[in-house]
């Protein structure tokens, strides 16, 4: 086994400690930004839906303002967003590089995506069900928590999965500007030093990771669909 590794993946074997370290960094970045960014994104998505025309808290000013901000942030390429946010990132977490520095722009980068996907998932729910809830004299807050979200849960899970997968993509990009993680590992060794086996192993690793997340998400969503 060891000989095989040394023979076919010499650089990966050599750099295995770095490799494991970068996996850990990627995991930390994805989990932290996932937790913060997705919560904020889902909340924003809910606000988008309830303030929409005919929504529970119809408010066209909030709706269109929020929609516009999201569209602006979404249209900025992520690499540019990192550069654009350097000052803010430094102010917030004290540094603009490394895992810590990458998390801030990643959160900002994932919120628009998460909120749009949440919005789409929630719009799938039949407005008639909410109307039925209101006719029973149930408060709007309760309807959001106990009708809107549970009814859209399969769609929401799929949205969360898509967000996690694109977060993994974002960590790789953050890596290229000094963010650490698998991306930075692949660029630093695989690309800059022509260690092809590093690139291939990184790609395979990401491929497997993405497939696992996707299939777990699909299974959860299917189980919740009645």
């Amino acid at each position, binding site marked *: 086994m060891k000989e095989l590794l040394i023979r076919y993946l010499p650089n990966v074997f050599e750099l295995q400690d770095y490799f494991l370290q970068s996996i850990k960094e990627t995991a930390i970045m994805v989990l932290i930004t996932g937790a913060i960014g997705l919560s904020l994104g889902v909340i924003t998505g809910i606000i988008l839906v309830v303030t929409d025309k005919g929504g529970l808290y119809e408010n066209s000013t909030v709706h269109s303002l929020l929609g516009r901000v999201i569209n602006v942030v979404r249209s900025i390429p992520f690499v540019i967003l990192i550069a654009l946010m350097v000052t803010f990132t430094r102010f917030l977490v004290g540094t603009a590089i490394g895992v810590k520095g990458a998390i801030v722009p990643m959160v900002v980068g994932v919120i628009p995506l998460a909120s749009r996907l949440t919005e789409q998932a929630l719009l799938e729910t*039949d407005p*008639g*069900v909410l*109307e*039925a809830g*209101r*006719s*029973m*004299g*149930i*408060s709007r807050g*309760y309807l959001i928590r*106990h*009708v809107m979200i*549970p*009814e859209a*849960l399969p769609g929401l899970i799929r949205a969360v999965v898509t967000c996690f997968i694109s977060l993994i993509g974002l960590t790789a990009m953050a890596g290229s500007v000094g963010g650490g993680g698998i991306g930075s590992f692949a660029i630093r060794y695989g690309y800059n030093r022509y260690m092809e086996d590093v690139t291939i192993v990184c790609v395979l690793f990401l491929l497997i990771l993405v497939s696992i997340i996707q299939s777990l998400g699909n299974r959860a969503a299917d189980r*919740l669909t*009645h």
Partner: protein
Amino acid sequence: MIKLENLEKTYHTDAGDVHALSNVSLTIPKGSVYGIVGASGAGKSTLIRSINLLEKPDAGKVFIDGENITLLSGKSLEQKRQKIGMIFQHFNLLKSKTVYENIAFPLKYRKEKPKEIEKRVDALLKLVDLEDKKGSYPSQLSGGQKQRVAIARALANDPNILLCDEATSALDPQTTASILTLLRNLNEKLGITVVLITHQMSVVKEICDRVAVVEAGQIVEEAQTYELFANPQKEITKRFVDTVFHNDDVERLLEQDDLQKRLSRGEEIWHLVFRGEGANHAYIAELIRKFYLDISVIYGSIEIIQNKPIGNLYVSIGGNDGCLRGALGYLRREGISTEPLLLKETEEAIG
């Protein structure tokens, strides 16, 4: 009792203003089954939604048992709504919850004790005859079963009023009949006031005590169901009533038929409507005997509405002119309405 006073509602759309309700006033007696009929877009949906204020009218008042609920908002309006159940055309059940959880939903919101909830839901399941579907999800049920679940859910809070928004429009005729029977039973057993909107006159015929006809956001006619069918006043009401008697179909057939041939034989075609006792009396035999007329029935039907019959007859009448006029006069005196479909050509007309 539900009392609507001068309700106004206008929707501002890109295509212009739509007056969904204009000056609508209506009194719905306690414990009755009240029908509101109208074509789609007539404003009946807005009308029923203004009873529980899902649609807030621009002006006017809604009284429920004497209380002006248009003044309520927030929590107090929510509490009022708990006493007004509502069911919908597309059932609006929670897909992610079982039949049991759907019915328990309004009770859980009110933080009832789990034991109480279970007792109440089981009783409701029995009431709508769905005890064996407790653990099923809505997607596993037929349309009629879904509507039964929706009815049970609407009754969970023990409402005094049940609003039905086209509740049978998505169901087949047999299922419609069973849901209507259920609604009628609930009305009789629980004394619950049922308000239903529909575009199907057959539904009105089946269960309503009183009916209002809505056209272009206004109530154009309001009467006891039998009266409305027996004596429709407005053109739109006649058209609705005709759909139950199939008069529209008959008249279309007659137009295509060999009317000209009958005419050449000196016959006339009359549409006679018999009400109440008149539907049982042997008028045709009497006319033939007393007035020496040749009468043949082209089409006839009897509908029972609120336990009283209404008969519709299309007859061709031949014979002496004077006898014919005499016969028609006799019928009118007996309270039978006579309407000519095709008359003999008179001398003047030919001249």
